[in-house]
């Protein structure tokens, strides 16, 4: 299982700050986005804008994720 954290509007839409996604080591960020929208259809309209962070850095769609990784899903940042 992959432990995924949600922030901001993504958390509001999912209705929870964390989700457990079935996972095989080496699957990509793009595959995670697909899995997230299947489990949480509310994310579908915003998935193209959502960012995935792996181990505290932004990850591209083709990056691989391992089950022990720190993973988060959120919209573009708007701090400051």
């Amino acid at each position: 299982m992959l432990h995924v954290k949600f922030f901001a509007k993504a958390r509001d839409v999912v209705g929870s700050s964390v989700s457990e996604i079935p996972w095989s080591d080496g699957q990509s960020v793009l595959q995670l986005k697909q899995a997230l929208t299947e489990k949480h259809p509310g994310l579908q309209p915003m998935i193209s804008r959502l960012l995935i962070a792996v181990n505290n850095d932004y990850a591209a769609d083709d990056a691989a994720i391992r089950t022990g990784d720190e993973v988060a899903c959120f919209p573009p940042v708007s701090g400051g």
Partner: protein
Amino acid sequence: MFALTQTPIDYHALTESVRSSKSGAVVLFLGTVREMTEGRRTVALEYEGYPQMAEAKLAELESRARSRWPIDQVAIIHRLGHLELGEISVAIAVSCPHRKQAFEAGQFLIDELKVSVPIWKKENWDDGTTEWVHPS
């Protein structure tokens, strides 16, 4: 020094922390909660952060700034939670030998913070609605 805080920002202490006789210039930037945005009236903002990643991205931001300017000391603090009008959301203090460096580094740090550090802002408009802010 980087910090995320739920309590009001003490920018005086932050500024003192970067002063030194090696530097001739200190620039402090404060982001404050503005009432009017494109004709709409804000009554409050809520800030949410992803603390462990924010700390990592702030450290990376400091390295990038230090590679471009001869920064003496830098300190950044961002407020999280509920902020009323006029309150300070972020404070960045930087000291450099000369003033041009300090202005450029300060502007770089806030510009880049706004695109790379995982913090999100929710508007509370005066009509009672709330809305997560999309970066422009």
